[in-house]
């Protein structure tokens, strides 16, 4: 036990003293948040939505419902003028309410010249509509319930969307770059061999490596979340216990992958490209910087099974305030992560080489 703790302390020291590592662990995520936080502050992530339809009941209901959702700036307009506004880019999208009774077949017009804004608008409207639909199918008063994925007291900014993604991204990067690359470096330098020649058991060494990453990752996550909330004023919830549980499982998953990579590769030169190959696509696909729903459906389905998607989804559900604890959605993501953990552990245990 003393050996394990002393080694863990030594590893934490080397990790903290590594300036390059420090840059990627703390500086980089903070800079990303700063950059996007500043962009996000000018208007934030919002959708200018025009609503057109016959005067009275249904149209009023739709306008009222969407006005409840903070990210929509809803304007009621005449259909012709609204279409003109969407074409010119003044409005992001136009929702047309048909005359008649339920089921209401709403039509959404958007300007695909601005791809990103259009996709955001479509995704936001679609997710809100399905939530509203649920509410509408019940009693009429249920309309006032703003049951949407982005419901928040304040206007949701892009930073609010980004912070949980950054948290998930940091977990992946920390595990793969510091442990995956670190282990291969130690292997190359003969450090692993040197420790194997002492009474320290391999399990203790790996235990210390895992503890080190847990300590360093959780500490850097805490710092980044504090900076996001206190300095950048991100509106995120921090339910500590469930977040910690999800983070620890996430760290375990990416550590298993790190051990797999380090076990298979012989030199550090070979490891870094492999790690980049693993992390780069996930960084851009798994809902860190933009929602997975904006991807082509086929790709989105595949991406849905990636570990970083599970992790980002679970963390975002918790930090957006959408889930206060282990809701079915969060539990589902957690199960996905556990499946990756099981597979990763089994494979890396089989392929691991000390030399």
């Amino acid at each position, binding site marked *: 036990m*003393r*050996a394990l703790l*002393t*080694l863990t302390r*030594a*590893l934490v*020291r*080397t990790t903290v*003293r*590594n300036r390059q590592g420090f840059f990627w662990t703390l500086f980089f995520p903070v800079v990303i948040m700063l950059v996007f936080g500043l962009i996000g502050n000018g208007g934030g992530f919002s959708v200018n939505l025009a609503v057109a339809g016959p005067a009275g009941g249904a149209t009023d209901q739709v306008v009222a419902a969407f006005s409840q959702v903070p990210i929509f700036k809803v304007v009621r307009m005449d259909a012709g003028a609204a279409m003109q506004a969407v074409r010119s880019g003044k409005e992001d999208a136009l929702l047309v309410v048909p005359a008649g009774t339920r089921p209401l077949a709403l039509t959404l017009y958007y300007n695909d010249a601005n791809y990103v804004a259009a996709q955001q608008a479509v995704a936001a409207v679609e997710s809100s509509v399905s939530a509203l639909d649920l509410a509408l199918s019940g009693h009429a008063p249920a309309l006032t319930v703003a049951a949407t994925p982005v419901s928040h007291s304040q206007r949701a900014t892009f930073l609010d969307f980004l912070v949980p993604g950054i948290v998930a991204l940091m977990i992946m990067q920390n595990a793969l770059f510091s442990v995956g690359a670190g282990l291969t470096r130690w292997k190359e*330098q*003969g*450090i692993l*061999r*040197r*420790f*194997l*020649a*002492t*009474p*320290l058991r391999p399990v203790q060494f790996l235990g210390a490596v895992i503890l080190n990453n847990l300590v360093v990752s959780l500490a850097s996550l805490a710092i980044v979340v504090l900076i996001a909330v206190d300095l950048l004023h991100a509106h995120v919830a921090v339910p500590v216990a469930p977040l910690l549980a999800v983070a620890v499982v996430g760290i375990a998953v990416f550590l298993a992958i790190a051990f797999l990579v380090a076990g298979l590769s012989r030199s550090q030169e070979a490891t870094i490209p492999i790690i980049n190959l693993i992390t780069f696509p996930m960084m851009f696909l798994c809902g860190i910087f933009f929602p997975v729903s904006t991807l082509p459906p086929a790709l989105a389905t595949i991406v849905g099974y990636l570990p970083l998607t599970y992790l980002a989804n679970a963390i975002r559900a918790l930090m957006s305030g959408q889930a206060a604890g282990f809701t079915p959605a969060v539990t589902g993501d957690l199960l996905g992560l556990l499946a990756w953990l099981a597979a990763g552990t089994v494979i890396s245990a089989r392929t691991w080489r000390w030399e």
Partner: protein
Amino acid sequence: MIEGLRRPDAGSILYGDTDLIRHPETARRRFGIQLQSSSFFHLLTVTETLELFAALYPSSRDVGSLVERFGLADKKDDRVQGLSGGQRQRLAVATALIHNPEAVFLDEPTAGLDPQARRNLWDLVSAFRGEGRTVVLTTHYMDEAEYLCDLIAVIDHGRVLDVGSPQELIRRHLPGAVIELAGDVPVPDGLSLPALDRIERREDTTAIVTSSLEDTLVGLVAWARDQGLHLTGLRTRSATLEDVFLKLTGRSLRD
């Protein structure tokens, strides 16, 4: 294999009555080992490194006095990455000795060191040996082996060619002497001299290995007179371990 880092295909390793293949932990606990000097965390300090290794064993020497003894006192709070080659080697040997091992394995501990640093390390190894402990040293420096070792095994391509004390090995293989000449004296390879063993070209000298110094020397002087040559740089000496090593392992370059 003795250190438990690799499993032998066949055979057994006994330490006293202990089978080290079945009980590698005995070797790990009782032996010390020095591997490459790079095998330490570069961002830890000297003291931190020694304290880390001390914590891996049930009992250990005092880190402070070890640092003192290995001449690392000025550097004790410096990170390993800032140490010179000699300081790193001393640190590597110090970590091998931290738990008062019964035997210590040193793998080319003075490779790449300047003469002072080598002497300094030799003194440390001698002192350890003086405590009645065993040192197993791998080296390519024959003067080092001659100076430090009681028993030498000459190993070539994984085979033990001969075992003995330095003096024994020299007497057994090269009982005569060596006559050295400056390299620019044109001694033909096929020169026939009385009692001649071999003629070897080294960097800037020619070594004439002989079983009888007097006979060969007389022959050599007569030959030089005949040719009108000066025997520049002529020196005679008894054979060294290096001569024995070269004789046993051959002269061809190896990988």
